[in-house]
């Protein structure tokens, strides 16, 4: 299952599996962002190109306002996906 919610410090928490059948809900949340966010990946097990597409669209939109998403607690499998796709160059991963 996939879940997206706001944490106690206004960060976005992603949990579960961010796959092609789950992107619509996530897209709504990311497109409504008006400022940069910390996105906590600690509980995220899986992401595919569908999820990356949502993050990319959000990052592009925010960057036009000089804002960005910052990713934290990214597990090493997902970190590999970011690296293979070059997304490690367009997201700050802490």
């Amino acid at each position, binding site marked *: 299952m996939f879940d997206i919610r706001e944490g106690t410090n206004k960060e976005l928490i992603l949990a579960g*599996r961010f*796959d*092609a*059948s789950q992107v619509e809900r996530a897209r709504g949340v990311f497109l409504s962002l008006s400022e940069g966010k910390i996105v906590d990946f600690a509980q995220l097990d*899986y992401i*595919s*190109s*569908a999820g*990356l*597409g949502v993050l*990319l*669209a959000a*990052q*592009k939109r925010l*960057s036009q306002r000089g804002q960005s998403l910052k990713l934290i607690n990214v597990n090493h*499998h997902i970190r*590999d*996906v970011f690296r*293979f*796709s*070059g997304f490690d*160059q*367009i997201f700050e991963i802490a």
Partner: protein
Amino acid sequence: MSSPAVQRDTSARSDVALYALLELSKALSSEFDLDKLLAVIVEKASAVVEAESTRIVLYDEVPSDADVKLSNTGTVLRAPVIDSHGKILGIIESVNKTTQSSFDAHDESLMHALATHVAVAIERARMTEVHLDNQRYEQSLRLASEIQMRMLPSGTVSLPVNAPFAIHAFIRPAKQVGGDLYDFSWNDERLFFCVGDVTGKGIGAALVMAMTKTLLRAHAAFQDDPAQVLSAVNTRLYEETDPAMFVTAFCGFLDLRDGRLRYSNAGHEPPLLRSGRAVDRLQSKAGLPLGVLRSFVYVVEEKVLQPGDSLLLYTDGVTDASNRAEELFTSTRLREVVEHCANAEPSSIVSDVAASVDRFADGTAQADDIAMLCVKYYGAERPVEMAETFRRDIAELEDVFDLVGRFFAATDVDDATRYAVELAAEEIFTNLLRHNPSGGDQIEIRLRLEDDDLALSVTDFNAPPFDVQADAPEVDVDRPLEERTPGGLGLFLVKSMMDRVAYQHENGNSTVTLYKKVPSA
């Protein structure tokens, strides 16, 4: 007494008689216990004919001077009880009229009716008893059949997907209980299996079958020499069963580490060995059946099974199954079925043979017990393979992941590979949904691990050629953010994370296969 008084008396009397007869009829329809019923008849009969006493005598053997007709001495009124076949069952006899000096013609006709009631009651009670006996017999046979079947391990065996062998067995007695048997047991190193056939059918054979099965299992647990197992069982059977009883049996120990099969045969049909597409009898020297001589030396023979080889053990109920024209199924037909079985899995071979025998018999009653046991040896390094078909719907994605999850649960492959395979399965599946609108209704995903080679195949059935990679846009991962697009990203990731991609279009089906070497355990 005046005549009108007599008139009234007579009419009152027939009321009592009719009432008693009615009571009798009720008892006849509600009472099935013969002794109780006869007691009721005796009691009511005295009321009906107004007698001091009545008795019923039933003959075990009909005396030569038995009454065949009703007799009336005035004080003794006696009628024979004759059943529907005209057989004399006994007599019913009332003595001493209580209301007048002698029994009259009216009493005679009442007595005749009573005798008929008695005959009907006895006949019905006897039929009920026979019926109940039959029912009890049927029930004990059913119970015996259940007990017998429960002695055998279930013919359908679920093993881990990477177990070095598969096994499937089938048994169908001709009667409720039978003399065929199979058994198997295994540990990490070896598999023991056997099939046997006791002479004769029915309960006697079933008891010897139970004994043989127990002996084989017990001896196989303590040693792994098939000839010694047979020799030991032979002596016990010789000592403890009827001299006319004997058992043919075949047993073997398969070394699960290297495929070495050691087997021994006591007068049984040699098994069929299917290796590739070739089917042959497993060569064996048939020793004497078990239980013929007190001591007999059986020989051990050996054959190394190749990974993929299947062995089918069977009893002659298979080859001797006959059809209406009284032709036999024969070992030739059996061999053909085994040859043509599509995938040589034990469950398929056994069900194919059973179905083929039934088609051949075409409703002809099964004359002999049928038993089969099929073992397939995969080799110590059994490829793990799983496949499932999915609807062309994004909602199926959860089930796609479930399949991948089960596949990895059955293997020791590392998590990084699992992630790559999950991602590849999703990306190819969703790509087909989005970009191959002319694809078929069903998409199959197949996973296979052989040695250290993992293959993921995604097949679009009844689809025109469509290579997911062909039109994928190039991805330059070094472009700055504003120039990045999500197009082609999925396939790009798949190619980065898997080692190799192959595409083929065959028989109208379009298949993409992705390979990855996995670190060997």
